[in-house]
């Protein structure tokens, strides 16, 4: 789960990090009043609290030099969708004059199976671009997850991005705080970009934290309904998630259902191979019940992008007869399927499954290639 900038900064404060003074403004609140209460004056930065990447480039961060600017920019930003998402909150933050912008972040290195810290003296720009163009400018340090980030390692990172003296020790403190937050909050990613160097101090102008969804039960205070504003999901993806479906919207017009992510992706590939374009990815997972199958089929029938539907099931734990029953249920509930459906059934109880389908006039193939060919003819 992605946290908002203001949330990540609140958490960082608990780790002793100094963040810029700020107020959080909801739509309808008077930003001037709130700023005055907090002792905050222009110049300030007004920041759209959306979870999409590239918010700055998309115009979601504005400098306000006067009280009038604040009023105007707050109204402007509340009405401005960033990559399709309008913010529910704005963060108004003191402007921090600075010359040097650093980058620091951390993720889990899958190959090394260790947290890895990434840092660069070239913050403030697209760090991925820098990683591509000047890979040597990105410092990488692995951390033993049991021992934790040692103080000398934190200083070493700072030294390698060119810091010395008091700035170095302030950076090391910040990095340690960020690492501790990353570990204690089950981070998939924690980063600050840019991390401003102001004199000897380091100040996170932005902060990001993505928490592992599988670990959210350990952080109940973070749990919330943010699907709509995450910017990660389309309208139909949100509908699907609410129905418990693992669904991703794509650009084509052929609805895809598979069991298992690998097989479902492969089904998409197969459709492409034969000239079709998938409208979605929908994985019913292992051991799906008839009820789930019904939900999935009904959902793709409703989903306006699909013109026809291809369902590719290889029964392992999933039983083909159960799948067939689910399809029939959908058919019964909807009266009839408005869109053509081609089913491939193989594996556990495939014959029972095909029999059920054929009784209801639905084509069921064993060979996926034949099935795709038939699909493309429809």
């Amino acid at each position: 789960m992605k946290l908002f900038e203001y949330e990540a900064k609140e958490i960082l404060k608990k780790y002793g990090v100094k963040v810029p003074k700020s107020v959080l403004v909801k739509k309808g609140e008077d930003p001037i009043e709130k700023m005055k209460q907090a002792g905050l004056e222009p110049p300030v930065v007004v920041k759209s609290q959306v979870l999409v990447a590239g918010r700055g480039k998309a115009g979601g961060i504005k400098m306000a030099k006067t009280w009038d600017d604040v009023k105007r920019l707050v109204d402007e930003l509340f009405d401005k969708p960033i990559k399709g998402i309008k913010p529910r909150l704005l963060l108004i933050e003191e402007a921090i004059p600075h010359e040097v912008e650093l980058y620091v972040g951390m993720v889990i290195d899958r190959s090394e199976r260790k947290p890895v810290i990434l840092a660069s003296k070239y913050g403030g720009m697209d760090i991925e671009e820098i990683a591509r163009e000047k890979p040597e400018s990105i410092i990488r340090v692995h951390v033993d997850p049991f021992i934790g980030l040692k103080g000398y390692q934190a200083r070493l990172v700072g030294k390698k991005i060119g810091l010395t003296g008091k700035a170095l020790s302030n950076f090391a403190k910040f990095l340690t705080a960020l690492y501790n937050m990353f570990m204690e909050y089950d981070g998939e990613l924690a980063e600050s970009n840019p991390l401003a160097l102001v004199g000897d101090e380091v100040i996170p102008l932005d902060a990001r934290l993505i928490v592992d969804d599988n670990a959210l039960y350990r952080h109940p205070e973070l749990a919330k309904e943010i699907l709509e504003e995450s910017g990660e999901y389309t309208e139909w993806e949100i509908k699907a998630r609410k129905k418990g479906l693992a669904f991703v919207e794509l650009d084509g017009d052929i609805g895809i259902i598979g069991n298992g992510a690998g097989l479902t992706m492969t089904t998409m590939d197969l459709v492409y191979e034969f000239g079709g374009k998938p409208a979605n990815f929908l994985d019913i997972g292992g051991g799906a019940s008839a009820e789930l199958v019904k939900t999935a089929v009904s959902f793709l029938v409703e989903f306006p992008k699909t013109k026809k539907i291809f369902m590719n099931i290889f029964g392992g734990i999933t039983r083909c007869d159960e799948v067939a029953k689910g399809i029939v249920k959908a058919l019964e509930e909807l009266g009839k399927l408005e869109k053509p459906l081609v089913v491939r059934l193989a594996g556990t109880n495939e014959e029972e499954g095909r029999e059920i389908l054929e009784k209801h006039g639905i084509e069921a193939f064993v060979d996926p290639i034949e099935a795709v060919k038939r699909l493309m003819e429809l």
Partner: protein
Amino acid sequence: MAILLDEKTKVIVQGITGREGSFHTKLMLDYGTKIVAGVTPGKGGQEVHGVPVYDTVEEAVKEHPDATASIIFVPARFAADAVYEAVDAGMKLVVVITEHIPVHEALKFINYAKQKGTTVIGPNCPGLISPGKAKLGIMPGHVFKEGPIGIISRSGTLTYEIGYALSKQGMGQSTVIGIGGDPVIGTSFTEAMELFEKDPETEALVLVGEIGGDMEERAAQMIKEGRFTKPVVAFIAGRTAPPGKRMGHAGAIIMMGTGTYQGKVKALEEAGVKVAKTPFEIPELLRQALKK
């Protein structure tokens, strides 16, 4: 021979009294797996499909000192602890079926197991099978047949599909490992390949990859450097998946420009590996590779 698992391996099932644990214990027993004990805290003294249940792995091992492998079906919140318990009790192989384990926990128990010399498969994996010998996992046993082909796969159902395709063409398998789809897993492509390289029964290998991560690239590197010398055929799922979208598997995110379909295929082909466009081409490519 096969790798990691054969008809003599004595197995403990952790979480045996749960719905999944009990169900798959039955299927594994039917397949011929030597399950000697089950463990569920607080359920010691019961029996599941004739298998005695203990409160702790320690107790199970005391009664069944020849047990060397464990398969874990316990819920995500307790799975990490089950792995530690299995490792501390001296298991050499631990298969973690459980999905939704927090990645920071997996990170830790995998590092821990490695230190102690225990092989972990998974988490979030279908397990492994040495066809005709034993099954330590949740895959449908009947789609696999005994033979000389090794399979290492990041994907579950797709592995069954491929195993089935091979079996139908008379190309049986030595051992089939579903290594799991999570970001951090206990056994990678290259680690499993080291074992297949040494297995005299395995004559060729099928790698079933996915977009995301760099395991396929590392496998290619290993082959290029001559550290894996048997014929290899690969398939990569997700050729047409849009970059950056989550595809159900967290493992399928394309990060930092690495892990693209094209990059993986290029790396593998440069290492002399034939990459199938669909799973159904694999048997034919394998036949060609074995002929050389």
